[in-house]
């Protein structure tokens, strides 16, 4: 009887595993090419283009530094009085879960490039409790950061005097796979979304 029970459990587990879950691609493009006079449809996935930014240690960081890792990107500023503390309180939970996994990285881009110089970001990271290298706080020129946000990570950001703290932006956490393709966007201020992000990261880590 006990054996039968064990078999049933094993069986159930196996049947769950037969079809590995797969995350969707967020920016799929179907391109029509004409080859030898015939129209062929090609599916391409947009990827994050290379960038050159500086981290909290004033070290140059490029897309290469995210090779062989999945990563979570977001946009914030250190003096943000509203949603950033919630996003980073939540992202800190995600960071803690994967702190010792070198296949997981985090990239927080400041949108207040005037005030949030690398030294300011370093103090911020320390106060948040980040001791390891896998969470980068990235600084760059205004144009670079805003272009990355809007064109590549698809996060709305804008300098706006009326907004609390002087900047309007969305609190999305963007999940990027090892091939630099966006595989998910989660509202960093919503608990359920953050749980979904962690579950999706586990799925993505299993992908080749």
């Amino acid at each position, binding site marked *: 009887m006990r054996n039968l029970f064990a078999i049933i459990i094993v069986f159930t587990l196996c049947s769950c595993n037969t079809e590995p879950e797969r995350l969707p691609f967020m920016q799929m493009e179907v391109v029509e090419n004409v080859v030898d006079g015939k129209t062929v449809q090609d599916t391409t996935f947009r990827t994050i283009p290379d960038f050159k930014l500086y981290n909290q240690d004033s070290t140059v960081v490029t897309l290469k530094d995210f090779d062989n890792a999945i990563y979570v990107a977001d946009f914030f500023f250190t003096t943000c009085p*509203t949603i950033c503390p*919630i996003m*980073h309180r939540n992202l800190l939970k995600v960071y803690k879960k994967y702190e010792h996994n070198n296949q997981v990285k985090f990239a927080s881009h400041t949108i207040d490039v005037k005030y949030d110089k690398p030294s300011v970001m370093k103090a911020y990271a320390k*106060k948040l409790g980040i001791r390891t290298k896998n969470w980068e706080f990235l600084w760059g020129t205004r144009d670079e950061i805003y272009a990355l946000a809007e064109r590549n990570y698809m996060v709305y950001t804008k300098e706006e005097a009326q907004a609390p703290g002087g900047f309007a932006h969305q609190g999305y956490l963007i999940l990027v796979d090892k091939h630099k393709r966006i595989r998910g966007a989660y509202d960093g201020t919503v608990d359920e979304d953050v749980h979904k992000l962690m579950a999706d990261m586990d799925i993505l880590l299993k992908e080749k």
Partner: protein
Amino acid sequence: MRKNIILAIFLTVISAIIYACQNASEIELSTYISNGKDIYRANCQNCHGENGEGLGELAPPLTDSVFLEKNKSKLACYIKNGTDQPMTINGKTYQGKMPAFPKLQTIDIAQVTVYITNAFGNKQGMYKYEQVAKDLQECK
């Protein structure tokens, strides 16, 4: 006999009045706390946390009863005008920048102060609107 009856009625009335007053102040306290909780959720929880636990060293916890009691008369000023002075909470020094909340009215400040000083393990009772108005005039 008649004297006793009068005395009994008198005592009953007095105790009813006392009871009613007590009830009224308890009701006032719980109104402050429940309104204060809404104000806290909308304005403060992002930094100070759902349970007043703070956020790393970026925002201090609101669980240091001794600090809150000692600095009661300054809390309204911190909330209305923000603060960036170093302060020691639970034995740890924090220096950050808390934003000002110019939009909060005196009554809102009274209510949110009563909420934080009666939640997260604190139990400091009422802090009246009139007192907050006075404290706000003393802000530096």
